[in-house]
């Protein structure tokens, strides 16, 4: 469905074969009239989106439209920028993560993030995965956790005999899967991905996309991508953001991905995805 004049969007209608056929629709994350500013510059405005549990939602739009800003608002990464300010509400299972009583570290544990460039620590593969769990005081069997996380990240079979080697010794695609394993190891509910394949070759990219499809069985995934074909291939829902004349990004359309890429409701969406602009 399309956004109204203020950019307000509610969740799109159902997707055949998705969760609502077997149970009620629930949303892991929801924004209500969210705006994010850096100092006096409003980067995104009036963003209202609902992210379904165990579904993959892609955020697409031109450079500078604020899609990464929106993503970073979901685990309070913008807090690390001193001038940033978030208005409106960001609800995680119905609770506002910007309430004063909420610990941002706990938010980031439950809402994990994978970045554009693979950023393993200069430590062993094992320690890369175990690190977050150790910091969080994990009391269970660490070996099992590392194996389980690497298996879920589809990396175990490639590294099970070299867990003590440096994470930096892996290929780019393997490093990104290691970072996914590291994110999984602290048992998040949502995984945010900020252009996770832009630094990878086509085969490594397809492996990550395939992995994302498997991960959605366990996690809700929100992915920012500048690659529209990736959004089309890998996501269930897509939100298209664009810049207004005041350069603030806003949601133009939020729809099931198959619908958005075949019958977009807004001309602005159609012009962008078909390349008829400029």
């Amino acid at each position: 469905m399309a956004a109204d004049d203020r950019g307000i969007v509610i969740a799109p209608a159902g997707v055949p074969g998705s969760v609502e056929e077997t149970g009620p629709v629930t949303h892991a994350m929801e924004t209500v009239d969210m705006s994010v500013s850096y100092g006096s510059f409003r980067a995104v405005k009036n963003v209202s989106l609902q992210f379904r549990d165990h579904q993959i939602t892609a955020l697409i739009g031109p450079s500078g439209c604020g899609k990464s800003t929106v993503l970073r608002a979901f685990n309070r990464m913008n807090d690390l920028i001193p001038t940033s300010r978030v208005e409106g509400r960001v609800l995680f299972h119905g609770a506002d993560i910007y309430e004063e009583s909420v610990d941002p570290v706990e938010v980031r544990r439950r809402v994990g993030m994978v970045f554009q460039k693979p950023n393993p620590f200069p430590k062993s593969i094992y320690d890369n995965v175990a690190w977050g769990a150790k910091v969080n005081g994990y009391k269970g069997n660490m070996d099992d956790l590392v194996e389980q996380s690497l298996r879920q990240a589809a990396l175990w079979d490639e590294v099970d005999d070299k867990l003590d080697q440096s994470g930096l010794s892996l290929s780019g695609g393997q490093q990104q899967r290691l970072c996914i394993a590291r994110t999984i190891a602290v048992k998040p509910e949502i995984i945010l991905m900020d252009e996770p394949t832009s630094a990878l070759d086509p085969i490594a990219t397809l492996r990550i996309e395939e992995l994302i499809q498997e991960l959605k069985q366990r996690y809700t995934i929100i992915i920012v991508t500048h690659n529209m074909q990736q959004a089309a291939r890998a996501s269930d829902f897509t939100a298209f953001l664009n810049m207004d004349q005041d350069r603030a990004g806003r949601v133009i359309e939020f729809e099931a991905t198959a619908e958005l890429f075949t019958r977009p409701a807004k001309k602005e969406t159609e012009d962008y995805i078909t390349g008829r602009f400029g």
Partner: protein
Amino acid sequence: MTAPRRHFHEELRTIEQQLVLMAGMAERAVGRAVDALVRNDIALAAEVVADDQLIDEKYLLIHEKWLETMALQTPVAIDLRLMSSVLHLLVTLERMGDQATNIAKIVKSIEGHAREPVILEHLREMGDLVQPMVRTAMEAFVQRDFALALRVPEMDEPVNRLNRSMTNDVARCAPDQEVLEWAVPMLMVSRALERVGDQAVDIAEQVAFLLTGEFQEFTRPDTESYDH
């Protein structure tokens, strides 16, 4: 600033232009086949049969370009719907050429038989009706004109009526065995022209799909005399 997919959109226009040329070839083939029948022109009928190869070659040329564009450009939204419609029209127009060939082959097969003027007049009339239908449907496609596309099924009604009456026309020839032998294949000619009318309606339906993203059946199945 240059639109980022200018080259791709030029390719789409080229494919569309080739398709329009192919539609012209198919429509003319139908007209010439009916002319050959009405004027009993065996040479013209032979030309129609031979020229079907040109339509087939055009089909292959456009299809190759279509495949290449799909593989390399991964179209979406209205571009994807256009490519879907192009493929549908491509197959429809190739079959329209086949219908013209079928009529032309019948003309050759009944050479020398006594003919029945009322049947010939009805078939000529059907030919005169279906050609503008094809032109109108293609014009609606080129102009992206939904209202014009909706006129095509209306134009199809007299064609269907004439086709339904053809059985009686042929039955009236029963007393004269020689004329009857000529008349029975005219049922197939009538059927071929009725199919060309339906194909024009199919093209119009694709225009609606292209413009709205929803497939709409313009002709209700129960309005047809029999399945096709």
